[in-house]
């Protein structure tokens, strides 16, 4: 027979005013299995907890029920108290007679009756509670960061500085991400490369960071603390152990007319190239699609076409036969920091919701460019050496029109969300333009000005007051070629007048979207994403850097449009989560997870199908000779989150959720 102790809390007046606690305690004391039943003013206080500890020892209790506030409030408190008195903490439960009773009813008789019923549920349930111990799973204390932009770099540095090894995987030839393409950053107007490149170098030189550039994640297996990641190191056609970054190959490559991705199509590069001078690692990559030698091979030409780079390479580092190679890394946590891409609105899109904006001439009118292209024009190491020049004829534009919200905040076409950074970078662009072209005129068409960060509103004010940018509240209906200029048809809603401007250049603030390939990466990681591809956080308010997949974290613009300070903050937050996870050799988990009864499981695997976390694995039951008897389900203790969907689905009732077994729940229902 059970020896249960019941403790009814008055919670001062909170419960005591409405519920007759003494009566409830007395009624519970009469239940079979209850050997001790008292009421007290404040159970959670030290003397209150002492009552429990004393009773456990004096009456040899094997179960404790505290009728008080919500378990969300004090379950841990009472479990700790029970444990310190030698009672397994999972033999201690709470009945909620405050939030669910005394606080919502007025009639004393009704509330007292209900309190008795609620406590009785738990008393009957606890008779079937089993002592449980926390589960320990080993943790491999290395981290993987996917994405080498500012967020990935920050996360990697923080974890490495925290004493743990990090593997940083970046799909491009160099780390740095979009921040390396920017000219200056708001609101400080810091030179972007100047503040970024020291970090990039630190990553390359850090003893605890393994940098895998020009590499991608191929597959991910395992679970928190125990991930196994296969990484594809793409073929640069260069032996990285021999290359010293001298640049001779690049200088001598005959094909110099390939549109440069780094320059956003405004400049050119060679077939064997380093994307930008400050690249880390400073090792070139050979673009086989545009290389004469490889094109020759594809055509089946016997004699080697070109090969200049290999001839001039003093280190004999060029390897035209290099293949992609694969390595497997074991890590305990993964941070996704893959960043963003800008919405290229000029062309046909792959999905229904991205319609494209033909009326803006983007992609057809050469002087209609987007924000990143403007950054390259403004950048001192850009295709124009930092001069703002028209792509069409190289002349200096005297009038530039900036359009905000292109593709953002539009439910009918494009995306309904706000891309957050555009108001700020457009203001920045007007200032950069003014600094470089003193007699230039900048006009901005806006819907709202979103400048919520520190110093942000002041920054926009400066663009208007010091750089004399003209801000017109309204949208533009079309951009058409008008001889040498671009006819901008818009409206100024504050004056109510239509506006027609002949601009020399138009810059579009296009929407921020997650990187291409994000959905296939997310699927490899079992991380969920929204309809735009942005990765989902575990809870938007209180768990913004975790995902619902234990051990996988998100930082930066891959989760939502975000600026640099917030991306850096988020990256440091993920690092702190990872270092917290790594603070012990083992991960301690609450044991309220599922367990399979090996005798009765028939191996139908309905549970495997319904488990949202893929926590059900297969286990082979063998006889003594090693012959296979049956393959049954087994729960991975590191992955199971304890929802119980498997138990409700199991046709043979062979899987049980500890803490909420059928016995326990039926016992509670029977107490009605």
């Amino acid at each position, binding site marked *: 027979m059970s020896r249960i102790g019941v403790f009814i809390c008055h919670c001062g007046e909170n419960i005591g005013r409405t519920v007759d606690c003494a009566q409830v305690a007395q009624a519970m004391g009469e239940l079979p299995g209850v050997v001790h039943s008292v009421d007290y003013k404040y159970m959670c206080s030290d003397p209150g907890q002492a009552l429990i500890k004393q009773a456990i020892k004096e009456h040899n209790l094997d179960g404790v029920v505290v009728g008080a506030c919500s378990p969300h409030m004090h379950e841990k408190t009472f479990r700790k108290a029970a444990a310190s008195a030698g009672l397994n903490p999972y033999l201690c439960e709470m009945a909620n007679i405050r939030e669910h009773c005394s*606080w919502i009813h007025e009639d004393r008789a009704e509330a007292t009756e209900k309190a008795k019923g*609620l406590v009785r549920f738990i008393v009957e349930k606890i008779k079937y509670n089993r002592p449980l111990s926390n589960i320990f799973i080993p943790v491999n204390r290395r981290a993987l960061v996917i994405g080498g932009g500012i967020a990935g770099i920050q996360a990697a540095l923080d974890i490495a500085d925290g004493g743990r090894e990090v593997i940083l995987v970046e799909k491009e030839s160099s780390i740095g991400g979009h921040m390396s393409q920017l000219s200056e950053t708001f609101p400080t107007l810091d030179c972007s490369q100047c503040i970024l490149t020291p970090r990039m170098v630190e990553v390359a030189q850090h003893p605890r960071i393994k940098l895998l550039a020009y590499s991608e994640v191929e597959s991910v297996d395992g679970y928190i603390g125990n991930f196994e990641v296969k990484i594809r190191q793409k073929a640069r056609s260069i032996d990285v152990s021999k290359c010293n970054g001298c640049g001779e190959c690049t200088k001598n490559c005959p094909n110099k007319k390939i549109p440069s991705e780094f320059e956003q199509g405004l400049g050119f590069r060679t077939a064997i190239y380093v994307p930008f001078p400050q690249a880390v690692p400073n090792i070139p990559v050979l673009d086989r699609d545009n290389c004469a030698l490889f094109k020759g091979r594809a055509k089946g030409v016997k004699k080697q076409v070109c090969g200049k780079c290999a001839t001039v390479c003093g280190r004999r580092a060029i390897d035209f036969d290099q293949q992609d190679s694969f390595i497997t890394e074991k890590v305990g946590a993964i941070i996704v920091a893959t960043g963003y891409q800008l919405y290229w609105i000029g062309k046909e899109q792959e999905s229904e919701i991205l319609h494209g904006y033909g009326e803006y001439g983007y992609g057809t009118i050469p002087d209609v460019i987007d924000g990143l292209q403007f950054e390259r024009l403004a950048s001192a190491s850009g295709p124009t050496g930092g001069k703002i020049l028209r792509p069409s004829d190289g002349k200096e534009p005297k009038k530039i029109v900036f359009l905000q919200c292109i593709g953002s905040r539009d439910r009918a076409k494009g995306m309904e969300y706000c891309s957050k950074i555009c108001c700020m970078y457009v203001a920045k662009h007007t200032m950069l333009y003014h600094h470089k072209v003193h007699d230039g005129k900048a006009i901005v068409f806006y819907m709202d000005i979103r400048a919520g960060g520190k110093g942000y509103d002041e920054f926009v004010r400066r663009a208007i007051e010091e750089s004399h940018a003209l801000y017109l509240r309204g949208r533009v209906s079309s951009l058409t070629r008008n001889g040498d200029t671009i006819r901008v048809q818009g409206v100024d809603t504050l004056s109510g007048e239509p506006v027609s401007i002949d601009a020399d250049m138009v810059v579009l603030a296009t929407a921020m979207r997650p990187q291409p390939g994000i959905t296939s990466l997310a699927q490899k990681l079992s991380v969920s994403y929204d309809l735009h591809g942005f990765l989902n956080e575990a809870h938007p308010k209180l768990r913004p850097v975790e995902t619902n997949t234990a051990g996988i974290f998100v930082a930066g613009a891959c989760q939502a449009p975000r600026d640099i300070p917030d991306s850096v903050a988020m990256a440091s937050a993920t690092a702190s989560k990872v270092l917290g996870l790594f603070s012990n050799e083992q991960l301690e988990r609450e044991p309220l997870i599922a367990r399979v009864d090996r005798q009765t499981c028939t191996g139908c695997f309905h549970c495997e199908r*319904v488990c949202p976390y893929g926590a059900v694995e297969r286990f082979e039951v063998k006889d003594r000779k090693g012959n296979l008897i049956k393959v049954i389900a087994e729960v991975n203790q590191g992955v199971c989150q304890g*929802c*119980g*969907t498997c138990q409700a689905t199991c046709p043979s009732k062979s899987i049980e*959720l500890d803490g*909420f077994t059928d016995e326990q729940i039926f016992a509670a229902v029977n107490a*009605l």
Partner: protein
Amino acid sequence: MSVPAKEKASSFEPNIVAFVCNWCTYTGADLAGTSRLNMAPNVRIIRLPCTGRIDTLFILKAFERGADGVIVSGCHPADCHYTAGNYHARRRFAVFRELMEFMGVDPQRITFSWVSASEGGKWAEVVNSTTEKVRELGPFVSYPRVAHAQVK
């Protein structure tokens, strides 16, 4: 029946059991309590980790043991703490409703709702409206008696 059914029903206090999920509805009910929202005392909550844990047998057992009505409440679709448990509960419930009718239980006695952790007011509304609905339906007559009545 000499007493009109409606009058008889109005003096009867229904017994209602609510199977709720820990993360959304239980927390929402906590919020209703913290906000001191007044509601009918007829509903007693049984806490489960997720509505996906709910075996339809719990509901049948509840009726058998004297419940006049049952509430099942969990997280909104797409917001399940365990990502998909509430979908399984919903599917199970769709099949279960037919079973209930077959057994002679009025499906109106079961309320299925989505109450999130921030919807204390909604929980109060669910409690009050379900209590009134079940009050009108009257006490639940247990299934063996229904089956025997038909046999006669």
